[in-house]
């Protein structure tokens, strides 16, 4: 496991299908990249569990509510609130699959990760390996859930994969495979599929 992969946060709670990590607003800023739709991983009893960041929630507390209500939002207050207080940010992850004995599997792991484990962003190499070895079969999980915005997650996911291509390249070799998986899952739902392909077409154009 590559150690240089940056840590996003630490596990707060988990189920088989997903989990939530917590971090500080300040730490998120330090990561300096969009997080929605990013591939990430967490170690759990000999398995590496892979997931996609589905949501990021900045929580409030009594003080924040009070500050907003009073309209006290000078730059000093903002900075103080961000750096000196331990106001948590929660990041939700959908579990997509896991790796065991060196093999990638697009299924839910037997046990969820445990509390306080570190959630790391995947490195390009690891992320691509997970996608390609699974032939994007895990996209079904994203598309079939209703809790998070599936289309947005998939577009963000594709954009992350593309950001790993050497600059100026057109869509990587993973792209047809991703599109195929999407079409396979959604082809009986004309309306949803055509909206998704519209958005994906626009995204693909933006890579040129």
């Amino acid at each position: 496991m590559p150690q240089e992969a940056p840590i996003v946060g630490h596990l707060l709670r988990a189920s088989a299908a997903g989990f939530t990590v917590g971090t500080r607003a300040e730490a998120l800023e330090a990561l300096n990249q969009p997080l929605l739709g990013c591939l990430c991983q967490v170690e759990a009893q000999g398995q590496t569990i892979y997931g996609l960041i589905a949501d990021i929630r900045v929580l409030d507390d009594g003080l924040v509510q009070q500050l907003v209500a009073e309209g006290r939002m000078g730059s000093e207050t903002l900075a103080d609130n961000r750096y000196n207080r331990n106001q948590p940010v929660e990041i939700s992850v959908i579990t997509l699959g896991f790796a065991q004995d060196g093999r990638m599997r697009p299924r839910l792991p037997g046990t969820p990760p445990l509390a306080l484990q570190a959630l790391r962003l995947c490195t390009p190499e690891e992320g691509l390996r997970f996608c390609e070895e699974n032939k994007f079969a895990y996209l079904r999980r994203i598309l079939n859930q209703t809790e998070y915005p599936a289309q947005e997650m998939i577009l963000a996911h594709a954009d992350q994969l593309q950001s790993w291509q050497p600059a100026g390249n057109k869509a990587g070799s993973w792209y047809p495979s991703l599109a195929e998986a999407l079409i396979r899952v959604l082809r009986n739902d004309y309306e949803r599929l055509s909206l998704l392909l519209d958005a994906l077409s626009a995204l693909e154009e933006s890579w040129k």
Partner: protein
Amino acid sequence: MEMNANPAIGFVSGGGLEANLQVRLQVPVGEVQEGAFVVTDSEQWRFYGLVTDIQLQALDERYAGEVSAGRYTPALAKLLDKATLFPTLAVMPALMMERGPEPGSPEYAAWREMNPDKTNPMPVKTLPQHHSLVRLADAADISTIFGEEDGKNVFRVGETREQGHAICLRLDKFVQRSAGIFGTTGSGKSFLARMILAGLIHAGQASTLIFDMHNEYGPDTTSSDTGKGVRGLKSGFDSKVRLVGLGAGTSFGARQPDFTLQIAHADITPEDVLQLSQALNLTDNAPVVLSYLERDFPGDWFTKFMAMKVGALVPDEETGKRVPADDSVAKWAQSAGVHEKSAESLRTKLGRIENRGYLVDKPASSGLDDIINNLEAGRHVVLSFGRFDSELDYLLVTNLITRKIRDRWEWRTNEFHKDRLKNPEPRPLVVVVEEAHKLLNREMASQTIFSTIAREMRKYYVTLLIIDQRPSQIYDEVMSQLGTRISGALGDEDDINAVLSGLPGRGSLRGMLAKLQPKEEVLMLGWGVPMPIPLRSRRYDDKFWQDLLGSRTEAPASIADHNSLLGYDE
């Protein structure tokens, strides 16, 4: 059985014995054509079928209703189309054959021992399983079904349209029942007929009598649309084929007929005349008049009748009143007790055939017997009508000759059945008629000898090969008797239905008939072929003759050629 070497084009996705198989196509739709001959292996069977329809289907009509390349990026559009749009084939299952377990397996060896002989194809009684792979038939599949060209009996008539594998016709089977060649004008009927006849003559199982109304079978001719010379059967086979000209003095350019045919008045029977009822517009009383004529003048009624005059009157010696003359029709009618006006009308109408140049009182030679003797001796006769190419001549002469033939072949067959040791089996005979509807239309069918032949002469070793543009005009009872049908393009619904009458899979084959390429393609079907098959017809040209006869032609084409070979050029 060997694996078919072709790649799969799709898989069985549904269907039934009645309703055709549905095959999901996995190659671009343009790679498969209607009429393609396909095979499918499933369990111990190999199935043989014919693509009868191709359909474009979509998972959801909305995918088909919008050009995806116009909406999405090319990469996405291509993937989407592949997943949502798919062509399917309708395949008419025709035959199946036991193939045994996988070759090489222990079960296979055991099966081989149980079935030492070659297994034979049979009509389909079951279906391949879902998802059985479908392939285009390869050369081995096609020769399993249609036979392997042997230069004699198994005669190549063309090739499959997709991959150009030879499609053959078994001539011995072909001549066992009457056959028909159909197609619109210019579709290639005469060329195909000439080619099959050449094959028949070469193979030698049957004699052929060709009524050559337009002088295109015997002598060499020129193709009307290419202007190139076209070899006739006479120069192809020389002495095996007798070229007979109707009437004295008929010739075909430089070529003289082997002999000419003149018909004696005495050979004309009332039956022959009745067969012209329509053409001569005879009245309903004509049969009665004819029967009295034959009663009064057995053997020479025609001569006698023609000598009588219509309306000849002389003054009565006693009364001075004008009465019918002794040599008048009326006189005879009165004495015979026949209706006068009917007799006179018949006499007048027979005037139309009286002066045909080939009808004579005493022929110089016995052309009619020569024709029959030649046919019995295993030779072939092309009777060219020369300048006598009216419908009346055609009806009269073909009926008259064919009736004689029927009598002779029936007699021979009966003799043969009486004493098989002493009497030889009759020589099978194929009688070839162009413009067959003139002889076999609904009104005529009851009168002409041809429908009798089509219906029952098989027992007497005589069958017909009829060639026609308008099969719908031919009496259905005759059409349904045709063993082998070969048809070029047909446009008319009724003609298409007529060609398919009495055959299974009509609905599926109909469209195929309408879309055949003129001059190039035909559909072959019926009892005489294992399964219906469209094909690109073999070219009838110099190469054909070379392939048929070997590089050495059988004999010099004509006396002129012969002479020039010997250095006697004039």
